[in-house]
């Protein structure tokens, strides 16, 4: 992977948040440490009200941290005024200037440099307008635009100034699902094209999965896990993260010799043989990693349980099936196999999953 090493080498730490604390009213950020690399698309994921926006506002200079340091390329970033930091900020509701047209909004940041008429800038603006596909909107005022159009304008306004860091605060939460899907792709292409270091905040895991180079998961004002999307998705570090990334089946039990003993006596085989692992643990099994059959199948999978279907919810192409095997497990099956196997509520089934599909959650319960 030659391209990958090249990629790695280019990526120095560019923005460092070290042990940042901030108290704002009832709400606080605690011990936030993040190292964001150059050109990285970094997503901060967490439920609403966990202080994600405040992190962006600290980076942009609206607030100073109570404790901790903020470094940009090893320099103290906190000393700089917001107008000196060269960050692009896109708020959740876009915060376009209502008294200016789309064109004037986009040119706002460039006019201030005093060389608004210089060729480079007009090329930059032209490029951005094409990239965001908004030339037909240039003379309109923000209040006449749809959510998606406001969104494009806000992003164009932020990036024409070539910011060092682009900060996106829940940029898609106000869009309808269809626009959101289109926009997700565009945002990814935009990042590939410009390579601007980007910090994006969201509560939507699928959004994070699609866009992020790395994800930080936040809970109650703290960062609880940082990793690549696949790390977070496959090996969530705690029950909270597991629930957040849609890992439905989180179970508590006691670890003993390669097995986890659940309260009702069920034994689940796991692969991790960690001697440090002792006593109470939480485990998680992704619902799509469980196979449902009417008969017991003989395979290498080491976890086989008999149970009864107690609920089926149609999710469109898939169905979520809940089976009682002494405990309740959720399973995702395609609607095709649901019909083929004639699965109905009340039927007996066998649930099978591999030992390697069982994840140990190490974080707080």
């Amino acid at each position, binding site marked *: 992977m030659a391209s990958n090493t090249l990629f790695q080498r280019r990526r120095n730490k560019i923005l460092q948040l070290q042990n940042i604390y901030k108290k704002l009213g009832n709400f606080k950020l605690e011990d936030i440490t993040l190292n964001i690399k150059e050109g990285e698309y970094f997503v901060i994921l967490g439920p609403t009200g966990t202080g994600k926006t405040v992190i962006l506002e600290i980076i942009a200079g609206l607030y100073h941290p109570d404790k901790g340091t903020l470094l940009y390329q090893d320099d103290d970033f906190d000393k700089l005024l*917001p*107008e000196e*930091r060269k960050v692009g*900020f896109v708020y959740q509701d876009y915060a376009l200037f209502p008294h200016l047209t789309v064109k004037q909004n986009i040119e706002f940041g460039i006019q*201030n440099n005093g060389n608004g008429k210089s060729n480079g800038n007009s090329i930059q603006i032209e490029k951005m307008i094409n990239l965001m596909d908004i030339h037909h909107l240039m003379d309109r005022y923000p209040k006449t635009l749809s959510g998606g159009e406001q969104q494009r304008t806000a992003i164009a306004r*932020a990036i024409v100034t070539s910011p060092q860091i682009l900060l996106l605060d829940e940029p898609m939460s106000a869009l309808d699902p269809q626009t959101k899907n289109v926009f997700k792709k565009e945002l990814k292409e935009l990042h590939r094209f410009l390579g601007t270091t980007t910090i994006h905040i969201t509560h939507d895991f699928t959004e994070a999965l699609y866009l992020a180079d790395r994800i930080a998961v936040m809970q109650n004002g703290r960062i609880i896990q940082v990793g690549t999307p696949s790390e977070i998705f496959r090996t969530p570090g705690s029950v909270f993260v597991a629930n957040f990334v849609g890992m439905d089946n989180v179970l508590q039990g006691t670890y003993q010799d390669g097995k986890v003993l659940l309260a009702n006596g069920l034994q689940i085989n796991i692969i991790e043989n960690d001697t440090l692992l002792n006593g109470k643990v939480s485990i998680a099994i992704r619902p799509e990693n469980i196979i449902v059959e009417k008969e017991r199948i003989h395979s290498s999978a080491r976890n086989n349980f008999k149970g009864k279907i107690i609920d089926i919810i149609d999710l469109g192409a898939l169905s979520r099936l809940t089976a009682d095997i002494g405990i309740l497990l959720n399973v995702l099956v395609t609607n095709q196999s649901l019909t083929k196997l004639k699965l109905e509520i009340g039927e007996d089934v066998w649930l099978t999953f591999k030992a390697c599909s069982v994840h140990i959650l190490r974080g707080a319960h």
Partner: protein
Amino acid sequence: MAGSKTHKRQNKYFSNTIVFFIILLISFIILATSMILIRGVPNLWESLLIKEIQFAIKLSLYTSLISTFYCIVFSIPISYGLARFSFIGKSIVNTIMDIPMALPPIVSGVALLILFGNTAFGHQLADHGLKFVFTVKGIILAQFFVNVPYIIRIMKSTFHDIDPRLEFVSRTLGYNRLKTFFKVTLPLAKNGLIAGIVITWARALGEFGAALMLAGATRMKTETLPISLFLNMSCGDLKLGLASATIIIMISIVSLLIFELLGGKQYVISKEAE
């Protein structure tokens, strides 16, 4: 369904009561103002040719425009500060700013008269050419003192309603506080500012009590429209008195219309909400 009938009847009484009071008050207001307009308007043109009325109009315009200008100069930075920044003692500052609004203007006038006429500070100023007692400058100062809390209130709620994140975005785009204020905040405050100016100016035109105390009521010297009304009514010249009153009413109604057009209601509401 006897119950339903009772409800219907009571609902009808309820709305009828509201309509009754609205009509009563509206008739009263229209009746009272028309008493002046009916008598004043037919003679208006004739009155406008009288020297004394011309003097009063000119003096009223001159003093009200200057005092409104000072109200703007003071109210913009003060109200922005009070709307945006939090500091220790802010509520005390707010209350002090409102004092001239709570005082009867005539009391404000007495206070100013003593300050500028009867203290070392006042004498010092007078020695340096700033004479306020029984002068035109005194009229301007009285109007300013009485009106500045109103424009501060209007501007405060105007600035308060502007999303601070717009200013913050402007700063991330490289504008410092000052530039942001002129490029973002002030343009967004335009309607509130115009409404504030119109209402302040109209109030300055009608200012009587404080001006009377500080500047006195000297014919053809400190004779603004309301003072002229007062002087002419006192000596029984009803025709001249009504001419001044008519002009004041007409200016007041026009400025009220402008204020309403610019969303004045909004400011009054947020004033109450504070």
